């Protein structure tokens, strides 16, 4: 495993006349929690969309474990080990909670379409294995008691946790969490912070976009502040909090 998990080199993304992301050069060390913060519309989610391949950059490149993933498809990037969650919860509402996490095992299992019809014995074995590993990740986030509920009936807070659990089931090297705390109450946010730290302990690099400053400052190893698509501050939570540029961006002049 290399030391740098994600590297952005001269990354730019233009939407019409404006640069949502303007010349980002960031190296994310593996095994850390890095938060990207900034005012609304600063380009935080765009960065996530670029890394996970949902949108392609105008110029610049993205390296994941020193491999260039700039032009790769979303599902290929996921297969390589980059998982993500969404700002607007994207669960599969009609499937059960457990089945949602089982979908997360997709990249860690194999099957053929036509063979699935007749279910040969090795498929049954694999199916059982998919199920046990999904259950493992479900209990990792503490949702195992709800395994059989339809995912759509869960309260929003649990849906967010389910989304994280599903991403973890991919056993990724990097997980991108897009505002995981929005819509969560104080107690749930606290539990989320503890969960994110446990994710880091399992050797998964965490990138976090979040508005809840208390959470960000509590768990991050490094905080990157961006505004108008550019880095305006970068450092430990304490350093960033003292930075006059950041205060200006957040409070105005």
């Amino acid at each position: 495993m290399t030391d740098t998990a994600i590297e952005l080199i001269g990354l730019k993304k233009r939407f019409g006349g404006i640069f949502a992301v303007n010349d980002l050069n960031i190296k994310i060390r593996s095994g850390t929690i890095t938060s990207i913060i900034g005012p609304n519309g600063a380009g935080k989610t765009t960065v996530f969309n670029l890394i996970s391949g949902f949108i392609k950059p105008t110029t610049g490149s993205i390296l994941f474990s020193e491999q260039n993933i700039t032009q790769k498809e979303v599902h290929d990037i996921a297969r390589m080990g980059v998982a993500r969650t969404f700002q607007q919860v994207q669960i599969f509402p009609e499937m059960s909670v457990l089945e949602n996490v089982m979908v997360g095992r997709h990249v860690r299992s194999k099957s053929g379409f036509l063979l699935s019809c007749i279910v040969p014995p090795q498929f049954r074995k694999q199916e059982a294995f998919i199920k046990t590993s999904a259950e493992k990740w479900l209990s990792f986030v503490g949702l195992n008691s709800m395994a059989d509920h339809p995912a759509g009936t869960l309260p929003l807070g649990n849906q967010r946790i389910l989304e994280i659990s599903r991403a973890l089931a991919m056993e990724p090297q990097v997980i991108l969490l897009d505002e995981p705390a929005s819509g969560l109450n104080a107690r749930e946010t606290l539990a989320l912070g503890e969960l994110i730290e446990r994710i880091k302990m399992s050797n998964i690099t965490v990138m976090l976009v979040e508005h809840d400053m208390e959470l960000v400052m509590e768990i991050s190893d490094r905080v990157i502040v961006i505004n108008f698509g550019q880095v305006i501050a970068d450092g430990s939570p304490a350093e960033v909090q003292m930075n006059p540029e950041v205060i200006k961006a957040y409070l105005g002049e």
Partner: protein
Amino acid sequence: MKKDYIGILVLICCVSLVPFFIQNNYYIGVFVFTGINCLACIGLSLLMGYAGQISLGHAAFIGIGAYSSAILTVTYHWFPWFAILAGVVFSVITALCIGIPALRLKGHYLAMATMGFGSIMHIVAVAAIDITAGPSGISGIPKLSLFGFELNTDVQFFYFIWFVVILGLYLAINIIHSREGRALRSLHGSEDAARAMGIHTSMYKIKIFLFSAVYASLAGSFYAHYVNYIDPDPFGVMHSVLLLTMVAVGGIHQLWGAVIGAILLSLLPEFLSSLTEFFDSFNITYQTDYDTIIYGSILLLIMLFMPEGLVKGISTFYKYTIGRYLIPKHETK
């Protein structure tokens, strides 16, 4: 999943009893057509209910199957089973040609593409007289034989087609509950999330489209070998819409919905024709054209009051009415 297997057993029992209660060959024939529709609807349900894609051209795939069987056996004297296989291959190739461009895009492009394809195929069947014999149709299509045993009577074909339907249903159920099925259902739930899970969404959509085209093609081939005569009429866009109605009436999110919907709507015309006599006794002439109105109102009512289809609708209805009294209250939740 266990429920599904029990359902299959129940279906096998019901189907095997039908010929004992119905001796009339005409009505056995109606049940054969019901089975053929069932087969096509199961495939369509996989595509619509599980992958969230709409095909308005499934009758064209039925047509490809039927015409392949007819032309290859009558004109080129192929062995029927090879002709059926060839029909499947043709259907898969055409489905690939439509599916690859249409399914790489998000949204309901497949519905439009297949509708266009459906009407083109119908026009071809009518106009390409040298190949399809045009509106006069192809007759003398040989009967199917199974292990050297010809399916001569309606009852024999009835058992054969329902065997195929149940086999098709069994395979489809297995797919739904496999890793592949979960991938399909997930892209119906949220396509972006499915992609972020590493699922090649357009590939899955194409695969399931091909799979459903195979079901339709088989249905068409069996139709040709059962009726022994085909013309372009039953393969028009209206039949595609009828198949869609069957799936929607039964409930698109369950395979069983497709089966129930296909059975109900295939038997409906028979019920309506008995209605004709009923109306006659009041001196009102009921014309078969009115059938369309009845189909339309059924679809409308189902969509208004049971948008999840009959299967789900009735089970919910049961839960909140009769079930309430049968199951102690704390368990109903």
